[in-house]
């Protein structure tokens, strides 16, 4: 008698458990999990992004977005996950690698989702959105962008008695005045990075472009850039004991540098006492600047593509991007979102900005060749022409 009631009890328990798990399962199934991955450029950024995600989760009851920061080699970690067919659903893609990732087939084309959800793509600046398109196929939406500007130490500029330069000629003369009056003791008037990620802006200013590297306009611009160094008016940051030009400005070893938005929070937290002004990037024959931009993209192997699209489109929507822009960490990629105040010098670069590494699938590899050669050119062991032909060959792949 006891045995049978024991069995009945067991069955009852099992039934209850089954019902409970079924309930839980259906309840769980109602909430789709979407993973978002990216890197972090600063503690401010972390906090802000978590704020954005929290807002999304609060307004979308059926989707739960989870953001995880990859605190190391982002590219390598993502490559491994792509290879294992286990990537995050939505993730950052830098414009310099989007061409290569797209060619490897790991990014999900978004056109069908755009169509069915009637997403307004015209709200984005065409040159920025174009960075993440191949032909007519969209592979990601830009989340923000940053151009370069010119930052000048106010005290040193005043001592040299000049106004902030706006052209190549003025840059050289102001720097010359600074050198003559020894306004930057222990340093040099200009800090220039031995990096195509800065020199390319000057190439565009000279009327050149990446597609025709062996043209005289390009050679001219490179010679101007490197010439500033050989004339003693400029120097690379490592010679000033700095890791990058921003640090040189902070250490007051340079008066004029060319850096982007990211300089502002850095100076505020690390060198709060240095007085500097942000001016628009100078012009050569024409205006020229670089647009550093990152997209939110979806993985081809994403688990829940519809939910991932909801997250992606919300993050880059007017609502999502407005929250993201509230700290002024970068400029908005949408025409209908306002940047916070004080960013005029950066915004004025918009008409002249060219995408960094746009679309070229060989860009990451070519970039290494380009920079190694540039270091050789600056130290005098390589000719400008030789570097340009190496670069052109590397870009072609």
């Amino acid at each position: 008698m006891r045995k049978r009631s024991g069995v009945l009890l067991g069955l009852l328990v099992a039934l209850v458990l089954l019902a409970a798990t079924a309930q839980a399962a259906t309840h769980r199934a109602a909430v789709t999990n979407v993973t978002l991955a990216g890197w972090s450029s600063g503690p401010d950024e972390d906090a802000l992004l978590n704020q954005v995600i929290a807002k999304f989760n609060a307004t979308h009851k059926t989707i739960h977005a989870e953001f995880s920061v990859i605190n190391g080699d982002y590219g390598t970690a993502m490559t491994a996950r792509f290879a294992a067919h286990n990537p995050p659903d939505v993730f950052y893609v830098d414009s310099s690698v989007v061409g290569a990732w797209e060619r490897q087939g790991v990014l999900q084309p978004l056109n069908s989702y755009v169509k069915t959800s009637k997403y307004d793509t015209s709200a984005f600046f065409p040159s920025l959105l174009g960075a993440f398109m191949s032909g007519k196929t969209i592979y990601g939406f830009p989340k923000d962008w940053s151009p370069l500007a010119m930052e000048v130490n106010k005290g040193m500029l005043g001592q040299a008695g000049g106004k902030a330069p706006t052209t190549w000629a003025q840059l050289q003369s102001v720097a010359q005045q600074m050198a003559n009056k020894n306004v930057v003791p222990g340093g040099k008037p200009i800090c220039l990075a031995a990096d195509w990620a800065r020199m390319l802006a000057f190439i565009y200013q000279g009327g050149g472009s990446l597609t025709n590297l062996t043209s005289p306009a390009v050679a001219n611009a490179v010679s101007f850039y490197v010439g500033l160094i050989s004339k003693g008016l400029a120097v690379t940051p490592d010679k000033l004991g700095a890791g990058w030009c921003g640090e040189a400005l902070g250490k007051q070893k340079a008066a004029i540098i060319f850096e982007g938005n990211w300089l502002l929070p850095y100076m505020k937290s690390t060198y709060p006492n240095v007085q500097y002004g942000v001016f628009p990037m100078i012009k050569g024959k024409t205006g020229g600047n670089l647009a550093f931009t990152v997209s939110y993209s979806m993985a081809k192997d994403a688990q829940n593509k519809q939910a991932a699209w909801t997250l992606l489109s919300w993050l880059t929507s007017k609502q999502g991007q407005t929250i993201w822009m509230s700290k002024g960490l970068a400029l908005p990629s949408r025409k209908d979102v306002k940047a916070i105040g004080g960013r005029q010098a950066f915004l004025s670069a918009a008409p002249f900005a060219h995408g960094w590494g746009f679309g070229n699938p060989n860009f990451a590899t070519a970039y290494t060749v380009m920079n190694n050669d540039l270091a050789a050119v600056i130290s005098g062991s390589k000719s400008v022409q030789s570097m340009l032909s190496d670069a052109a060959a590397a870009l072609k792949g």
Partner: protein
Amino acid sequence: MATVSDAAPPPRSSMLGVRLREAGWGYAFVAVPIAVFGLFFIYPFGYAVYISFFHWGILGKQAGGSGTFNYSKVLHDPIFHTALKNVAEYTLGVVPLTMALGLSLALVINQKIRGRNFFRSAFYFPSIASSVAITTIALYIFNSDGLFNRIIGSQTPWFTTASKVTWAIVGLNTWTTSGTVMLYYLAGLQAISNDVYEAAALDNTSAWRTFWKITFPLLRPVHFFVLVVFGVGALKVFDQQFIVSGGAGGPNYSTYTPVLYIYRAAFSSFDFGLAAAAGVVYFVIIFAVTLVQNLTVGRREA
């Protein structure tokens, strides 16, 4: 004391049994390690050999057929040659220096000096910090206006000058690795029984002779170990060059190493086939070097 050889030799059948038993236990003891190595080293290497004959991307085989094109690309690449030259220069600098310094520190610590525990910790200290931490600190100290330059009165940015950076990294890694080598030599020194030193003392041998003729040769298994492990480690160097050059291998390819070449081929160009071919080629080179070491220094004691 009776030894085994004094007894009468056992019958042949049981000798075979003994040998079988010994072999069985031998295999049993090495089974798990061999399995782990097989899964996580041998198989991936075999996989690399396989894909080295194809065009291989992140998601697998790509069009273009099979052949030795990856190998010819690697072997003819001037950047790969530069990488080999760089790593050879680095290894030939760092290995002898680290061994010499490590052995010297071990000998010093082995003396009965006061505070030897403290000194042992002091020498080992740079080895404790992680690669990234120590390199970041070194970048700071070896800045063009950093601590080191202020002391020796120089302006050279050590880690960004093409002609100096390899030796700067040799210095850095010798400093961080000699503590570890010291530990290995200390362990080895403990294995040398005191009788040996007493016999030498009886013969009135000088300390220097005792070291060269007795201690040094008796440390041969440690020499071999250190030479192989740290030699191969030097040939595989990656972290410092990567951090110092931001992954670009510059300035002007001076910090490009073969492992960086493999890394860039795989994670920058997404050309897994090329990376695999470079990996196989480099493996053969390292293997040859180690084989030479095995045949010269690694001979078993009779």
